[in-house]
């Protein structure tokens, strides 16, 4: 099966507002999800502009934007995409 693309924004804004907690996500995934993604750390995705600052950190999963990303939100989205 094709792996899902998980892009974690590591721009400074996202990093400060929580992306620093996601850097190790690949190793922390629950067993049903492990190995199903390609994880990449990217520079600023341009989503953290003035208005959307409070939505950081941003993550994209197969192009779907997840705001205020946490590991749980990412896992939920992964399962959703896996079931679809």
């Amino acid at each position, binding site marked *: 099966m094709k792996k899902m693309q998980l892009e974690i924004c590591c*721009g400074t804004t996202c990093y400060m507002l929580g992306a620093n907690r996601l850097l190790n996500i690949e190793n922390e995934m629950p067993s049903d999800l492990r190995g199903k993604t390609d994880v990449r750390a990217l520079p*600023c995705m341009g989503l953290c502009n003035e208005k959307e*600052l409070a939505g950081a950190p941003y993550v994209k999963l197969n192009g779907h934007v997840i705001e205020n990303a946490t590991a749980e939100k990412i896992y939920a989205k992964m399962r959703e995409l896996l079931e679809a």
Partner: protein
Amino acid sequence: MIDGSVFLRRELMIRFVRAFNNGSLETELDRFPVEMRPRQGNSSRCCIYHDRAVIKYRLMNLLGFSCEEETDEARTLASYYREAMTREKPADITGRLPLSVCEAGCSECPSSQVVITGNCRGCFSRPCMYNCPKGAISVVNQVSTIDYTKCIKCGKCTSVCPYHAIVKTTVPCETACPTGAIHKDNDGHTRINGEKCISCGKCFAKCPFSAILERSQLLDVLKALKNGEKVVAMLAPALMSQDAGPIEQLFTAVSRLGFTDVIEVALGAEETTAAEAAEFREKMNAGEKLMTTSCCPAYVELVRKFIPDFRQYVSTTPSPMVFAAGIARRKHPGCKVVFVGPCVAKRVEACRNGIDWVLSFEELFAMLAGKNIDVISCEPWPIPRPAIDRARNFAKSCGVTEAVISELGGFADDFKLEAKAIDGIDRKTVTTLKMYASGKLPANFLEVMCCQGGCVNGPCSLRK
């Protein structure tokens, strides 16, 4: 997920820097509270109005004013901004503290108490009652009840209850404070006693309402850079343990902010190591019994304020920050220096030693975020002379000791260094230090770090 109060603090800093860079800070400041907590939006506290008040006071601190300085509640943030922009130097903090309590943010937690919760089943064996040394517990209507005129809050009952039905509530800031400096005044408001506070920042780090604020010098640094002043950034070695990227890339990122130069405080730590080892040899050869480190400013404050008898043992060697400032000023005559680190107490030490400004790691990163500088997109900076590892290790507990031991290895002395470390200052270790001061010396070399694990776990660390 990061802590909500950390998120708010960092979000505000980033907005602040962005607005400054756009030249719109003065006009935007008074709008921030409303924009961040609009009428239809959610609030983190009881209501948006309370949130807005707290945001206002946080901004006041970012401008370099503590909440206690407020004399006119109607004064606008724009007016504080104008005052800040004309000051030559940030407010002198000797005699005044870098930390203060934001009354609007403080939840005024009830004093610590032992409480019987609804989980009490009025059991037959009643260990709470039989273990209470003061006979303060009785069972009334099948529920344990505490007579508070007798209770001494020892908490024995909390540990013996088979249902975990008894809890001891705490006041997080008071529990965290190693010197009893933070307390409730008679009017019920929490305040910091300037005579007792050692600026360790533990209350700042532990308050779940994030109601302890730090008077910032961020605006002063932003202003100097904007005016094209020569400013050298001195990065504390703890930065290397913040998962913020390789040091070479961090250097490039920081230099893009407009600093004249960026240097490692660890270079100063190399000089501290040599001077500390020399001082130690001299003292031991002169028959002295003990020398303690002096690079942790909260510890130095602790001795100054609480254990004067111990002062004779504290080394007089300047800290890595002070040496680093010397290096920076020799290289760039006439420059201003800004120390960047994870420490609150450094603000006090800096003030005493002519260091122009101090920024926290968070403030530095907010500056990067404000300019959209990403560490991961930066080219590595060819550091002309990287500091040696043992100097970079100063930020970790026992790092200083190890550096001094390896430095002493080069000498054949009659005495032997016997090291002991205090890793983290709390009430217990304060008692231990007082015991040492009364003559029960532990070893001949004592390292004291106020933050457990060392500066890497400082109150303004990025690892939150």
